């Protein structure tokens, strides 16, 4: 078991019930060799954060398609902070307009993958940041 284990939480905060994108994301991440935990739909920020802490994941991939991202995603970061784990990477995916990228990043989201991006971009980002970083250590 010498190879690196990367654990990723796919989280769906908010009331949005469309989970095709989240499930395709989860499967694509698995096929990229990561261990993927999926929260299921309709999660509160606190639920997502506690799950991330307990599962000790490296990355959280948040998905929301109904426009609640600006309110809800930063709350996940806050909940992580409360639990002393804001070192976990938080990525935002979904229907996110460009003008929300900076506000999200300012509130602690590490990267935003909006329209025109797909799981492959997320996978590459994780490989670069989590695996790259570890390899450098």
């Amino acid at each position, binding site marked *: *078991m*010498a*190879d690196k*284990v990367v654990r990723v939480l796919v989280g769906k905060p908010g009331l949005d019930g469309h989970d095709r994108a989240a499930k395709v994301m*989860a*499967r694509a*991440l*698995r*096929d*990229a*060799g*990561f*261990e*993927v*935990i*999926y*929260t*299921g739909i309709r*999660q*509160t920020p*606190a*639920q997502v*954060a*506690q*799950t991330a*802490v*307990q*599962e*000790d994941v*490296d990355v959280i991939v948040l998905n929301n398609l109904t426009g609640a991202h600006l309110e809800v995603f930063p709350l996940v970061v806050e909940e992580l902070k409360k*639990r*002393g*784990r804001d*070192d*976990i*990477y938080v990525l935002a995916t979904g229907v996110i307009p460009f003008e929300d*990228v900076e506000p999200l*990043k300012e509130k602690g989201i*590490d*990267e*935003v*993958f*909006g329209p025109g991006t797909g799981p492959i971009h997320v996978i590459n980002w994780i490989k670069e*940041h989590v695996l790259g*970083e570890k390899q450098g250590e």
Partner: protein
Amino acid sequence: MRNKVSKKKRLVLTEEEVFRRLIQGDEVGLARALSMIYREEATSSLLSRIYAYNADKKHKSKVIGITGAGGVGKSTLISVLAEALLKKGLRIGIIAVDPSSPKTGGALLGDRIRLQHLFPNPNLFFRSFSSRGMVGGINPFIFDAVAVLEAASFDYIIIETLGIGQDEIDIVHMCDLTALVIAPGLGDDVQFLKSGVIELVDLIVMNKSDLPTASRTVGILNSYTRMVENHPDIIKLSAYKKQGIMELIEYIDNKWQELLDNGSLEKRRMERWKFQVGNWMRYIIGKRIHKFVEKGEVNPKASPYEIAISTLKEWGCEV
């Protein structure tokens, strides 16, 4: 979108911190202790401290195994069980083990979806593991993970594994009490009789008794209990309708107390300990063999027995 690449430093905790936070029941420390074990980063001194701590402390967790074929409702059962136990003010730690892809090593760990609605909750801890690297279901980390949860002093420790054959049944060695969950389904309900698993568990939980097809399974169970004298106890319930859950808890509590009082519990835990020593030996030796075969240090045409003997002798074992 790559202009502002953030670079975070993953939280690092010293062994000292991990241990201190773990025994206080702090989630970050607990989660990290499990990661260290799982990622084989745990030092032997951390493990020693945990085992020593557990041996000395008074509080004993009830370690309950829940096994059964895919889709019989293990996760659902655990969620309603946890819900009921939480209402009693108890602390519950759960471990679920799912298979991983042998090709990519990736895994989708979905068991916790079924009880996500119970979070956030400071008294409930859930950790998903993949069976990554396990040979025939045996991987020492999962035993040590139970020890970690014990150190965090949960009242109940529940372990969910997929158990269909002898291979997966190691769960009984990990737990004080093991329940095999069965459910009516297209013939799956007879499979458990053949699997041999049935002889090893304490309890059979017949789930989904709300289904109209459940009577068939009841029939099978009845003819089985008529034939076999020393069969495990049977509890019928419906996790979905939350029927029979209190009875199950009562059964578990009574049985556990009985095992404690008559000394069986201590015996079982001793067996677990021995089993885990064996596990580690197998695991370490297995890795060694793998290594020296890869390096070409042994003649692959030689008889395996010959290599085993000569290697053990080399290691100073009497054979």
